[in-house]
């Protein structure tokens, strides 16, 4: 009896020792923490990213026959302190990595907290250069200021702009981008006038009037968010400065803006990954669009696409780390660093700082009820209407 018991115990111990090594052969449910702003000032963008993350999990769970992804989402309420608390809470719940984050000011402390907990933090919500200068081995992002700047400069160059007025919000990401664009344009001999504005501004007419009467530019470039664009364009529509084009960045060349503010969007440019109506030609793109429509009953937007891509890369890295038996020993970061694949936002690789050096955005233009990608040429599905403004 004793002998049989000892044998049984030995067998159990052997199985226990072999289990981790056999990880690759076993089905596993991975718990991923999602820290996003679902309330507060960043609620809209946070919700958009969260939708993309949920779609990525849905696609993964349908396509990957073996493993499952389970998401635990915590609202960081658009506050840095709450973002840190959210990451710490998720870490205590045993998540294997943190996905999400919006706003460089929130992502900075939240990714620090994730690093302290030994967790990978991946995002597409913060483009501040300082985020990748901290030497964190666990921080990854798929987009950056350079990619937005490249797109805006490319378009302005195609337009042959000689005099540009840049109107920009005094937040880190928006002012970083404006200053990058200014530097590059000045180096090319373009005359640039900068107009910073505070987030609390409600009336843009004094700024637009200065542009109209003093700057007299070819193009007005905007670096801000949706509410700022609406304010700027409304003021411009009232004052009617003699410019040839109005160019913005994120959240502008979207179907939502066309639907909500049709009279303000005519011929306006903004960054756009895809045209609208969206044309998904790759199998990955079709999976994304199909799942997005199924889950949310609407056309996917760029926030969803970014959230989807970052999550897709993370989930793949988790599986590879699990297969290699390094899931709990920093393997996810190692596997993410090996990523090199085509995604919905182009090829993604990570450098030693966790940044994606390949990132380059595309520029779209509102044309009628469509958003047409007009830059770069290889992704363009139409020609730009130039000159063209909403008034």
């Amino acid at each position, binding site marked *: 009896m004793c002998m049989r018991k000892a044998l049984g115990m030995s067998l159990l111990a052997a199985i226990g020792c072999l289990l981790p090594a056999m990880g690759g052969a076993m089905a596993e449910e991975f718990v991923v923490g999602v820290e996003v702003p679902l*309330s*507060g*000032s960043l*609620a*809209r963008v*946070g*919700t958009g990213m969260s939708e993309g993350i949920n779609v990525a999990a849905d696609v993964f769970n349908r396509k990957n026959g073996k493993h499952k992804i389970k998401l635990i989402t915590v609202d960081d309420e*658009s506050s840095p302190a709450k973002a840190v608390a959210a990451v710490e809470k998720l870490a205590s719940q045993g998540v294997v990595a943190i996905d999400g984050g919006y706003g460089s000011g929130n992502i900075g402390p939240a990714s620090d907290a994730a690093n302290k907990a030994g967790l990978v933090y991946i995002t597409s919500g913060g483009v501040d250069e300082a985020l990748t200068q901290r030497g964190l081995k666990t921080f990854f992002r798929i987009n950056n200021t350079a990619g937005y700047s490249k797109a805006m400069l490319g378009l302005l160059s195609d337009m042959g702009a000689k005099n540009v007025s840049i109107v920009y919000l*005094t937040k880190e990401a928006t002012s970083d981008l404006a200053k990058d664009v200014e530097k590059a344009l000045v180096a090319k001999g373009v005359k640039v006038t900068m*107009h*910073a*504005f*505070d987030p*609390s*501004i*409600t*009336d843009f*007419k*004094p*700024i637009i*009037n*200065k542009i109209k*009467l*003093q700057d007299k530019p070819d193009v007005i470039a905007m670096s801000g968010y*949706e*509410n700022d664009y*609406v*304010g700027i364009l*409304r003021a411009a*529509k*009232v*004052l*009617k400065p003699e410019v040839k084009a109005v160019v913005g960045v994120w959240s502008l060349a979207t179907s*939502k803006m066309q639907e*909500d*503010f*049709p*009279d303000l969007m005519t011929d306006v440019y903004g960054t756009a990954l895809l045209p609208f109506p969206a044309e998904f030609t790759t199998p990955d793109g079709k999976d994304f669009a199909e799942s997005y429509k199924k889950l949310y009953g609407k056309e996917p937007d760029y926030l969803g696409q970014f959230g989807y891509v970052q999550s897709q890369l993370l989930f793949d890295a988790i599986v590879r780390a699990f297969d290699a038996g390094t899931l709990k020993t920093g393997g996810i970061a190692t596997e993410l660093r090996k990523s090199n694949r085509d995604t919905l936002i182009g090829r993604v690789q990570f450098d030693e700082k966790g940044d994606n050096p390949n990132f380059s955005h595309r520029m779209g233009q509102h044309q009628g009820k469509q958003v047409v990608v007009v830059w770069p040429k290889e992704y363009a599905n139409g020609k730009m209407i130039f000159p063209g403004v909403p008034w």
Partner: protein
Amino acid sequence: MTELVLQALWSGILTGSSYALIALGLALVFGTMNVINLAHGELVLLAAYVAYTCESAWGASPLLAIPAAIVIVCIATALTYGLVGRIRRDRELNSLLLTYGIGIMLTNGILLIWKADIRSTKSAWLQDAIVFGPLYSMRSELLFFAVSAALIAGLWWWLTRTWAGRAVRAVASNRDAAQLMGIDPHRVEFVSFLVAGLLAAFAGAAIFSIGVIQPGLGISLTIKAFIITVLAGMGSVPGLLVGALLLGLTESLTTTFFSSALQELAGMVLFLVVLFVLPNGLFGTRWRRAH
């Protein structure tokens, strides 16, 4: 340069009048009850979302949505008063905490119902440019400038020329003495809250017509209204108009001659300078002496 200055002054006046409209309700409740209603901005925002719903669901102009906004916001203010009125001790401090909490609940309620997207009127008529020589504005700005002036005049008339208004001032001046004179302070305070709700409904329609709304906007509206109320001097309706116009003009001139990035700072400097020179606000002392 003249064109630039004239437009800056015109923009400042229009912005100031919309600030006055937003601050009226908060100033009334602060003046009568010594209660800083930190949910005031959210009540204004609630009215703005009612206007949005009326426009998006039935195609109604934000102006036509004002009666519906009045009903809904007055119900919300009545409920707020129902809670604030139950505070028996340290009313100033406890009402601050309570209304802050109500504000958070309203913000999240708005977020749940209307989602986080930005909203603004689609009415081209309201956004049309109205030009007087070198002065440019949207029709909605002019319209609500007139509404703001009418409401300020109406409120001043109500407070100074009607029995109900005098009762409000009596309670504000000395609650116990007013009670001894046969005035029911609870009733008067309730009426003040309802009038504040009515004013918030107009302010909500204005911000939806002129600018852009989103669920997180409430707190910044409250802060702006509070600054103007203190700047004006407690209980002073004319002071409120002057304070709001001063703030609007300071912001607009700062944007024109320096940078828009400094406009918030300029507003705060104005606020501090006025309080340093006139600790009771622009019209506070005079108002107190007169009563």
